[in-house]
């Protein structure tokens, strides 16, 4: 593969995580209502690590992701500390953000047609990013664009440089968007359900490509998805969100084998997979809570079969039964206590 894009091997021993979120809260305030979308999220991501944020619609997973790049609309009230690569994202002004986005952190989306500009060719869009951030000539930018298209395994890359987004198939468009995102070798890649709209045989190709690129370039990746299978294929660690909070966090294999919190446990039981034919599916009764009021207790308690009066006494703090795993549930035992 391309020499230019290989990760620098002389990496200093990083003690500081690449991403540090502390008590992140996001409220959307309008005249009629206030939506408490994210309510106190703490997350760390080490350099070169893949974290999946797993959750259903309205759990706050995409809002958390967008907050990392300061991409939320003006109606959003963001509090808490957001640090990416040692920089305070909240404190950045518009100019600093322009440099920060693209070179330190990049994002890929579910729908490439809305992320790519329909009136420019794929080559022009990649070259523009490179020229803007690295101050190289257009010719050098185009050369880099070709390299990137080869990196994301687009066949006949040279010809595809001159293609417009609508001329590509869904899978190729998604690869082209990944190429744009990687143009300036970001340390952090944010992925918002990038494979959800793809067909099965193409989805697995894009997932394997992302994992390969992540290893090759040594990027940190935060991958938002609602699909347990996708998390199983790509994640090192998983954070499960519910009603704006991380309810469980830990290594992917351990969580898939034996979730600590009743919500991911219910989610695993409700996810149809092979060998369940004829069995009745276990369901989580009810629906997620409205976020118009800030939850003052365990948000999952109304749907939880194991709920007890103590669950309603307050928001459960994260408990950690084994190092590296934690869950916000009062029934989870604390280690060494």
């Amino acid at each position, binding site marked *: 593969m391309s020499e230019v894009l290989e990760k620098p091997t002389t990496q200093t021993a990083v003690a500081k995580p690449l991403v540090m979120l502390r008590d992140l809260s996001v409220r959307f305030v309008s005249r009629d209502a206030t939506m408490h979308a994210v309510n106190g999220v703490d997350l760390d991501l080490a350099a070169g690590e893949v974290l999946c944020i797993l959750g*259903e*619609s309205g759990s706050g997973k995409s809002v958390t992701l967008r907050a990392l790049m300061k991409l939320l609309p003006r109606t959003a009230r963001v509090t808490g500390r957001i640090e990416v690569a040692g920089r305070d994202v909240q404190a950045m002004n518009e100019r600093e953000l322009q440099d920060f986005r693209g070179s330190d952190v990049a994002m890929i989306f579910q729908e490439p047609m809305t992320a790519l500009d329909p009136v420019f060719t794929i080559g022009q869009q990649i070259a523009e990013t490179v020229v803007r951030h690295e101050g190289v000539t257009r010719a050098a930018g185009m050369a880099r664009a070709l390299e990137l298209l080869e990196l994301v395994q687009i*066949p006949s890359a040279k010809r595809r440089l001159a293609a417009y987004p609508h001329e590509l*198939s*869904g*899978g*190729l468009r998604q690869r082209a968007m990944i190429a744009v995102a990687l143009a300036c070798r970001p340390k952090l890649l944010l992925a918002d359900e990038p494979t959800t709209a793809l*067909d*099965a*045989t*193409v*989805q*697995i*190709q894009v*997932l*394997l490509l992302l994992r390969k690129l992540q290893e090759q370039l040594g990027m940190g990746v935060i991958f938002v998805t*609602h*699909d*347990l*299978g*996708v998390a*199983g*294929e790509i*994640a090192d660690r998983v954070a499960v969100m519910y009603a704006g909070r991380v309810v469980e966090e830990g290594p*992917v*294999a351990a969580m*898939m084998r034996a979730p600590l919190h009743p919500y991911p446990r*219910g*989610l695993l*039981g*409700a*996810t*149809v*997979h*092979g060998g*369940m*034919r004829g069995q*009745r*599916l*276990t*369901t*989580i009764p009810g*629906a997620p809570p409205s976020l118009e009021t800030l939850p003052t207790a365990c948000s999952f308690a109304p749907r939880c079969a194991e709920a007890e009066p103590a669950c309603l006494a307050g928001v459960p703090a994260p408990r950690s039964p084994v190092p590296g795993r934690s869950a916000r549930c009062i029934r989870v035992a604390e280690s060494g206590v």
Partner: protein
Amino acid sequence: MTLSPVPDRGGPAQPLLLLSGLKKHFPIRGGLFGATVATVRAVDGVTFAVRKGETLGIVGESGCGKSTTARLLMRLMEPDAGRMIFDGEGVGQDAQTGGITLKEYRRQVQMVFQDSYASLNPRLPIEESIAFAPKVHGIAPAEARARAHELLAAVGLAPATFARRYPHELSGGQRQRVNIARALALQPRLILLDEPVSALDKSVEAQVLNLLVDLKEKFGLTYVFISHDLNVVQYISDRVLVMYLGQVVEQGPVEAIYDRPAHPYTRALLASRPSMDPGARRTEPPLTGDPPNPINPPSGCRFRTRCPFAEAVCAEREPVASDLGGGHEAACHMAEPGSGHSQAGRLAA
């Protein structure tokens, strides 16, 4: 007048619906005088039967023709060629020639769409949406509304709470329940479910799947279940049909398709499912590339451009469906003895 269930005619052995040689091509017009410059062969010679009381799953990727097949099945569009026989009667013919009219056919065949919001009238309370079709069929309004309440209860929505609500006041899962209730309102025999749970969250998806299983038993229904989710299709179907570029490549009992897939495309499709076990990760995808454009499908076998076993014969001749025993058939030269493929007959029964 009341709507009574339509009695069975041909007995249990006669398929409820038989589609044979169904074709639908869409012309692409261009140039100065709007001449036809190309043709999208969306559905190209599809033949299958829906048996009474079964759930037939249809799987395939975008562009494989599953949605066009659904629209043809509902007669929301006219096929270019092919025949449809519903319980022994030609669809769209008049009574003298031994057939059923479209109006009668649509009473017996109903559909649930993926987009639960777009398929409900936003200006009607949900009880009115459910009662609408029975009223069109001549049921008195009061009676139609009473029936709507019964159906709301049957799909798990308390009529006292929900009957007067508008679609925007419901969650996605609740709206899909309303769509299911509406599909049941005319007491149909066949329900076509086009990606009914794809837009729902996992915890709600399981609730709706359980409901569909219950309703099928309660009302003696037959389902055609279209989905891109292979796990859901495996869970709910008795038989499965796999489509690729407008054609059926394999069909058979669900166990045969999932345990002994014969067509290389079916095998690749099943192998593409993400695994929930991080210990079993792959490094190579089962297939490369996207499905080709149905405007100019490859000659011979349409899958040959992505097939690891493709040989000269695959480009020359279109494979026919070969019987693999037990109602399992695959359209692949490797399944057909004497086809000229070096591995011909290897899969035959």
